[in-house]
């Protein structure tokens, strides 16, 4: 901690804020695609609530990234004027929506990690990070409760729904590990007391998985091989389309106020 210079810790803080912001933004964007198309009106509303929370959190994280960077970049500069390669989100959040069960499974995997991450960040030595985490954590507690309930309901529902859920988890399993991968900046952030202890996040998230999935009569194992890359800007083939769509109006008519 002592031999870290301010520049390094600042870099680590920006990196963290962008990672949190990008994950929330891209997952929020994916969920928002379902708005108006949900299977049941009540669930349409609930999922949109989560999308709203996530995009709201993304705004706080990206604004913070801009403040820490000190070059005058705003939340919209980050969202609308970066290329897909500059986005640091994990691949899990960019995967296209499939059926409702798959969407819920993806959400549950994210929520189980997200909650532990925010618990840790509530005590970050970087006050601005702790402040956002404290606001976001109340929302994410609800997200995890919602997704857990649906995992149990669909896993322990009909034979058809159990198969669907199991297949969703099988498809998503290789994307889980990337939520807790270390790199030099995350290690630095952890050592500086700013960031996340990935090992602890992983352990606690898997405890949640075990508890909920056993109740749901489903199985999930950490696969031997997993997909890395999102954080370093290497994404799935889907990411380019998300960015192209999201930024289309702003890119077509640049330098305007909206």
């Amino acid at each position, binding site marked *: 901690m002592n031999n870290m210079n301010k520049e390094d810790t600042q870099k680590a803080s920006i990196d963290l804020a962008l990672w949190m912001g990008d994950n929330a933004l891209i997952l929020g964007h994916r969920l928002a695609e379902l*708005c108006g198309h949900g*299977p049941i009106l009540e669930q*349409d509303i609930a999922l*949109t609530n989560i999308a*709203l929370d996530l995009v709201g959190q993304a705004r706080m994280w990206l604004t913070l990234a801009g403040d820490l960077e000190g070059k005058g970049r705003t939340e919209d500069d980050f969202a609308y004027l970066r290329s897909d390669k500059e986005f640091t989100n994990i691949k899990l959040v960019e995967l296209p929506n499939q*059926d409702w069960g798959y969407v819920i499974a993806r959400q549950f995997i994210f929520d189980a990690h997200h909650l532990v991450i925010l618990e840790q960040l509530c005590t970050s030595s970087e006050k601005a990070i702790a402040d956002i985490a404290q606001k976001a954590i109340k929302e994410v507690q609800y997200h995890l409760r919602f997704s857990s309930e649906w995992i149990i309901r669909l896993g322990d529902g009909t034979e058809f729904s159990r198969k669907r859920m199991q297949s969703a988890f099988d498809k998503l399993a290789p994307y889980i590990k990337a939520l807790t991968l270390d790199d030099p900046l995350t290690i630095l952030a952890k050592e500086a007391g700013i960031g996340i202890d990935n090992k602890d996040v992983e352990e606690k998230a898997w405890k949640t998985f075990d508890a909920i999935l056993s109740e749901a009569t489903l199985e999930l194992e950490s696969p031997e091989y997993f997909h890395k890359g999102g954080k370093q800007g290497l994404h799935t083939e889907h990411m380019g389309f998300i960015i192209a769509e999201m930024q289309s*109006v702003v890119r077509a008519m640049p330098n305007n106020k*909206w």
Partner: protein
Amino acid sequence: MIEKDLNQIFQDRIDADDRIEARDWMPEKYRQTLIRQISQHAHSEVVGMLPEANWISRAPSLRRKVALLAKVQDEAGHGLYLYSAAETLGAKRSDLLQQLIDGTAKYSSIFNYPTLTWADIGAIGWLVDGAAIMNQVMLCRTSYGPYARAMVRICKEESFHQRQGYEIMIALSQGSEEQKAMAQDALNRWWWPSLMMFGPNDAESKHTAQSMAWRIKRKTNDELRQAFVDSSISQIEYLGLTAPDKDLKWNEERGHYDFGAIDWDEFWQVVKGHGPCNKERIAARRKAQEEGKWVQEAAMAYAAKRKQRAQDQQTRVA
């Protein structure tokens, strides 16, 4: 008591501005009229989510993205209040939704028009929600209590939506030439369909007279349409845009704006299911419903299992 007396007592209550509640006696035709109107209204909210949701992924700032998401979500909430209001009259939500995807129930035709640019989101909030508010403010005093109360909540949110829409139009009309052109184009395309939202002229409207007598409606289609035109013109002028109607002019004598003839052929074409997006809208709702079936079945199966387990537990304890 014979039905004639009941009808008279009912009409006296209506005339005395009494609110009719779910358990009160009401003529069957009053009940059916309300179920039809409230469910059409609910369907309009739900189908109305689609053209706006079309732009959530492309909203040009995160602030706009959140506002639009929240707005479309509000529409889903309005749908829920209204389906609940219809259920107080003995209708079932599942039946009503089935009618929607069968194409036997109607919904507001305006949502069969496509949203082609970002400015359409501004125009819909401003004009379409604006026109809806004209209608809905009146419905806050409609004779059926549950409907009136649902409308009070809905109106509050709708006026917020209208301001949001107008704010998008202000940003565009004060922006670049390209943005202004986009705003004008949206006004051109949404103006006439917005006027059509009030329905046929009074002389052509088959439901108006009875609905007025029952105080389900308190103003006629033409009165509401005129009020909408009168209140919109200064808003158009403030934006520096032009209404797409060469016959539009202030009539000193009437104290109202005169406006051009509405293309009723287009209106009926869209009402009868041949508008630009009728098929797509219904297909989207059908897809949501069909893809949701297994989810509903699973949720019910799980609820039944839980109940059974709780009973088994009790039996064991006993």
